[in-house]
């Protein structure tokens, strides 16, 4: 069974997921006050301006925190075995919820402060999910 997928129409996150089809990790920055906005929205969370620019991230960041999930009854995750859920701080100044992949054993190989780089997981729906592996 597939992972839960983002659902549309949902205009705030539509441009973000459109960009994932080209494996571009995008975020927004306010043209008025330069605040970095993430997750995507139509307004700046610092000043309320609706004048936001979409930017491409280099996809490199640091693990802020994580947990290794041992038990999830959802059928998409139950067969995975232990997997790491994490918040990653991208170098451009935004924090994303994601999974840490590309490690032998998530129980020992994921660390707070670890440098990681985006790794895309293509989905049947055509979008891709940004996950992160050790840089």
């Amino acid at each position: 069974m597939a992972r839960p997928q983002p659902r549309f129409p949902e205009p705030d996150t539509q441009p973000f997921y459109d960009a994932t089809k080209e494996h571009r990790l995008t975020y927004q920055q306010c043209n008025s006050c330069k605040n970095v906005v993430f997750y995507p929205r139509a307004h700046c969370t610092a000043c309320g301006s609706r004048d936001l620019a979409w930017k491409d991230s280099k996809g490199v960041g640091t693990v802020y925190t994580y947990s290794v999930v041992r038990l999830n009854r959802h059928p998409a995750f139950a067969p995975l075995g232990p997997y790491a859920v994490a918040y990653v701080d991208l170098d451009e100044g935004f924090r994303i919820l994601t999974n840490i992949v590309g490690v032998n054993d998530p129980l020992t190989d994921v660390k707070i402060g670890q440098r990681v780089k985006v790794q895309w997981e293509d989905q049947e729906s055509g979008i891709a999910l940004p996950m992160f592996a050790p840089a």
Partner: protein
Amino acid sequence: MAAQKRDAAIVGIYEYPLRKAPGVTPLQIKADCAAKALADAGLSWKDVDAVYDAQDGAGMSGLSLPEYFGFKPNVIDTTAVGGSSYEFHASHARRAIASGKAKVALLTYGSTAHSDSRAIGTGGGGMGAGAPSPLDNMQSPYGMTLIANYAMVAHRHMHQYGTTGADLARIAVATRAHAVRNPEAVQAMTDLLYVGTGEITVDDVLGSRMVADPLHLLDCCMVSDGGGAVVIASADVARDCKKKPVWIIGSGEATKYSENGGDLTVSAAAQSGPVAFGEAGVKPSELDIAMIYDSFTITVMVMLEDLGFCKKGEGGAFVSEQRLRWDSPLKPALNTDGGGLSSNHPGMRGIFLLLEAARQLRGESTSQRAGAKLAVAHGNGGMLATSHTGGTIILAAD
């Protein structure tokens, strides 16, 4: 303490005794508890003129709850902010009473989460209900269970401050010691098939199954059925009630959510706590009783710090001093009913924090702290890492 306002007091309380209650509905539990809390106060069904509800029994409950109960309240408040809803309700009831809009406010809660077999903590990442939301769209693909949400805070707390699993475990150990003294909690653990219903050790917690690193099974609350009711009344009504009033002397409300560059080890309590303590004119160190939402051990650790019982990051050292037990010479005693960890957690525990705090200040707890005069009830609603609410209520004995 001389300048405290004493406009409103908890005058009636009732906790539904069962944690496994097949065949009843949340609405039935609410109405049953309402009648018994009013009887505890010496008040009647027709005295209620303000209704507070967290939408746990029925949708659009500002309409449906008065109709089901048979009330015609002048004040209706359906603030639904998860497990802290009842601290918000107590705060709002106090305001409504102080302003003269109401005299007798009723808060009720009912849940059949256990009998419904809801996998609250380990379900997850799921979606599909309701309209799509931007936050759901960014989170749901990654399988973050509710427990993992809290576990991420625990990991960061350990990284930032050197907190250990043993520090967290001490919270579960103290809480269980209180549960063992509470017959309803012992029955709860029995009915919910706990492996053991006696006292536990730090090693028991650390040796229990890891659910989401670094949280073990015994760091997590139960999923029970249950409910309760609280009656809050004006000072003039309170004087004629059956039991001594428990005064609401301070309240605070706040939200906290994940932000770019934010500190996940800080909760909404860091905002709601100072407001409530400031209004009450008391310091955390004066508090005899801390009823703090223990969905998980880390929840308590973070909130003890944020409420100001100790400095940020020093929760590990603070809980290691044996101070949390009911019979400790140190303040405060924590979750003396057995908490969500070992007595009662049907999904939204906030009402039980008010109930046990009131019992302590009346002298009615099964783990009574001698001479308890001041208590805090701090509720947490939502998800600690993603977004949550905090509601702080400071209570004083008559």
